[in-house]
């Protein structure tokens, strides 16, 4: 990787941007479905039947995305980012990745611990990843709710930081991840 390439590149790679918006759409959808399904009766079954495979899809997408990120060239931080922000940003991103891997594993694990069949679609089932233990289920079911809140709060913080940079500092932070191509000014 040459220095000149790294300084010219102002946006994340197209594949990274695709993964970013795909994850954003999937995660906001599953959070919405999660909240709606535990509050519904007649639609509960339909929603939970979408929730499970969607959650596993997120797990797969996030793992591929993380590996892809490892092999991609990242654009440099904008000059407007303070040293403190530069140290916090990667940690908070790592935290988001961790949440997005742990949350579906907790969902999968809690259904395993309750000895539910873990149906994805039709006759396609996942194998259990934990032994049958209802106390463990109770803890993981609680954790699934807490992690969902944490995920939503982290998402809000992430959105807030980007909007602050884009609208208040006007440093074009959003364009780094914009779904469309942004030319260097």
């Amino acid at each position, binding site marked *: 990787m040459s220095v000149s390439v790294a300084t010219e590149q102002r946006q994340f790679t197209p594949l990274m941007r695709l993964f970013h918006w795909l994850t954003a759409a999937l995660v906001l959808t599953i959070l919405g479905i999660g909240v709606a399904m*535990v509050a519904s009766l007649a639609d509960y079954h339909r929603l939970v039947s979408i929730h499970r495979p969607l959650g596993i899809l997120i797990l797969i997408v996030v793992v591929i995305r993380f590996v892809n990120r490892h092999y991609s060239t990242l654009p440099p931080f904008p000059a407007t980012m303070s040293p403190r922000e530069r140290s916090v940003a990667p940690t908070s991103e790592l935290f988001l990745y961790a949440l997005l891997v742990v949350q579906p594993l907790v969902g999968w694990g809690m259904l395993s611990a309750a000895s539910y069949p873990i149906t994805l679609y039709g006759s396609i089932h996942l194998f259990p990843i934990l032994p049958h233990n209802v106390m463990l289920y109770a803890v993981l079911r609680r954790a699934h709710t807490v992690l969902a809140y944490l995920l939503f709060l982290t998402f809000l913080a992430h959105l807030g930081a980007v909007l602050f940079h884009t609208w208040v500092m006007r440093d074009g932070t959003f364009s780094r991840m914009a779904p469309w191509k942004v030319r260097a000014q």
Partner: protein
Amino acid sequence: MAHAMLNTPVFAVNTPQAFYDRLLAAQPNPTTGKPDPQKMAAFLASHPETVQATKIIQSHPASSGFENSTYYGLNAFWFMDASGRSIPVRWSLAPVQPFAPANTTGPARPDKNYLFDALIAGILQQPLQWHLIITTGQANDPTNDATIPWPDAREQVDVGTLTLDHAESEDTSPCRDINFDPLVLPEGMAPSDDPLPSARSAVYSQSFTRRAGEKKLPSTVTPSEVRK
């Protein structure tokens, strides 16, 4: 697959909302200890299907025990064959043990558990059996309304026999630690447009979660009570 069945041929309500409203209407008044008849009358006035279903339920004699009762699945499901064709079905369990009507005129029995005790005693004497009867619906038979019976003329298929040869205490049975979900279905079966099974899934999931985290107490029915 887990399924609860009732000894009534139809269910009293056909939506989760009606179920909830009926519970509220039947709630005892804290001072009198009795439900407010006006509330129930108001509920029935806006739920003619419940009035109809109650007539059917009341004209259906209760049996003298658990062992000689028919149990009805009430909700409709779809059966699919290998070629992808599907038919709506309901099912019931018909006892091999001869029916005897419940004694509804005498004084109430003092021992509250006599039905359970009789069931355990019956099983210990000889295995109890029921035929699983599948009723196949036709195009206009409602699949989304558990208050309406299907016509008597519908084809019925005896698909197997359920044999109870022993009872199990909660302490030794695997039932306590699994959720009882009417929509965990085997391959070849699918839920219908009946809104009740989904509501039951939702509610049972909630109660299972709450029970799961509780300290487990010994079962009221001890293992020695159900063994010879």
